[in-house]
């Protein structure tokens, strides 16, 4: 499928484990094909390991700017934000994918930027959902997490991405089973279900079965 046009700012939220960092990395690489000045911003203040910074050499190779706390993946155990995070709102020529951290606590950092993002009004705020995560297993609990993120981040969602997965053990059947859930989340939140995302190895099994299916390459692999 062809992806929708990107807005200047794409915010990706979701409970940790939704796979939003992987979606963010793939979106940044796709966005770079369309535009010259692209950045991926890691606003995660929660996760100590497995950050978008893990892909930093790939960003460098592709000419994507990484806006990320200099302490990410280090022993400096403080919830630090990147010093250049204001480039996201101040540099209007820059197209940005924002990887918003974890849950409502992670989204707290977004509150600082949200008024300017809303004022400029050239953004999409997308919720990445995964029904195989324990705290978002049904539509109701997912909506609850969405409301908490909106409240903490001072900004409202505009769309849903269904990235339901069980890590590298995900089967096409697992993805098919998640569609009903994803549609229910979309219905209850009154938001469009923009994509269902899957890793490229199972994309061919599903591409004629699921609408708006998007293949992703997997960035971080476990030990």
């Amino acid at each position, binding site marked *: 499928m062809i992806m929708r046009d990107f807005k200047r700012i794409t915010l990706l939220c979701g409970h940790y484990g939704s796979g939003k960092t992987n979606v963010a990395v793939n979106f940044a690489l796709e966005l770079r094909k369309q535009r010259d000045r692209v950045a991926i911003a890691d606003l995660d203040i929660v996760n100590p390991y497995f950050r978008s910074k893990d892909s930093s050499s790939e960003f460098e190779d592709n000419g994507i700017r990484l806006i990320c706390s200099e302490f990410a993946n280090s*022993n400096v155990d403080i919830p630090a934000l990147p010093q250049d995070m204001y480039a996201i709102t101040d540099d209007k020529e820059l197209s940005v994918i924002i990887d918003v951290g974890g849950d409502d606590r992670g989204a707290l950092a977004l509150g600082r930027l949200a008024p300017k993002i809303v004022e400029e009004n050239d953004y999409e705020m997308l919720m990445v959902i995964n029904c195989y995560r*324990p705290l978002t297993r049904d539509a109701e609990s997912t909506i609850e997490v969405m409301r908490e993120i909106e409240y903490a981040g001072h900004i409202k969602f505009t769309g849903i991405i269904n990235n339901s997965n069980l890590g590298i053990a995900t089967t096409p059947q697992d993805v098919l089973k998640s569609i009903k859930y994803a549609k229910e989340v979309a219905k209850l939140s009154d938001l469009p279900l923009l994509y269902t995302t899957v890793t490229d190895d199972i994309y061919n099994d599903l591409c004629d079965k699921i609408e708006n299916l998007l293949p992703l390459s997997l960035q971080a692999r*476990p*030990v």
Partner: protein
Amino acid sequence: MADKVLMKGNEAIAEAAILAGCKHYFGYPITPQTEIAAYMAKKMPKIGGCFLQAESEIAAINMVYGVASTGKRVMTSSSSPGISLKGEGLSYMAGSDLPCLVVNVQRGGPGLGGIQPSQSDYFQATKGGAHGDFRMIVLAPASVQEMAELTVKGFELADKYRMTSMILADGTMGQMMEPVALDFDIKERPATPWATTGTKLEREHNIVNSLSLVAEELERLNFERFERYKAVEENEAMYEEFMTEDADIIVAAFGIASRVSKNAIVEARKQGIKVGLIRPITLWPFPKAPFEKAANTAKAIISVELSMGQMIEDVKLATGCKVPVTLCNRVGGMIPSPEQVLEAIIEANGGAN
């Protein structure tokens, strides 16, 4: 809706504890185990349980002491420096013969160290953990599934022997995500006639205490306690063997180090080197039997650890120093690579085949 869920190791511990009937969690946040507390904070109010973020690790372990005294399942979790703070409470719990679950998701040390994974609290967990003669059952998971399963097992063993079970994981185990099936068979809890639940004027007072005023009495309690520890050693040692049948080189590793080692062993087998893995699942009691057996057939043993060499001492004791035991390690938050372990295997083999 699904049979399996995708979980972080830390979350798997928290969910498994709740399934095991633990309704009381006390803790203080520390990386890399904070998700346990965060998960409990979200879940406990929904099931009528108690999540309490204590003012310190010391306070938390003493709250655990309090609930354990009433015979309820209770737990705390922390990471290395926080476990040191809990030391006094661990000793008091042992002295009072109270069951509980303590989780240590280890990080690099000593001191404040770092937040990256480590296994350097092996001595602390298996050789006592604080003052006085006591033991803890120490369980070392090597997958997110085992983080959940050993949590349930830990509660069961704690109740059975009236002692502390410790999950000794590392930062990687806590942070990594894998699919988990949470369909446990939760056994009936043994009765707790010793618990301080109020006499209702129907029985004598129960006293939970670690202070003894008479030396003879304290000696008797110590001997009795060690009879129980002996039963644990005889009955509860757990381990996994991987490709050991014909192995003349044995790798000893637990937790994340065992996963790295398995990759190296598969690679070494491709090169024709007969190598296998003994993975202790209980670190105390240490599974001596497979090592005693291996000492008669293997020509070398390699202990792969994220420490300066701590489990290696138990491996040497279990093998009676019949075969050379060497160390392959990374420390300070670093993890040995499969290539590094493969190199150690080739060296123990006396070169490539």
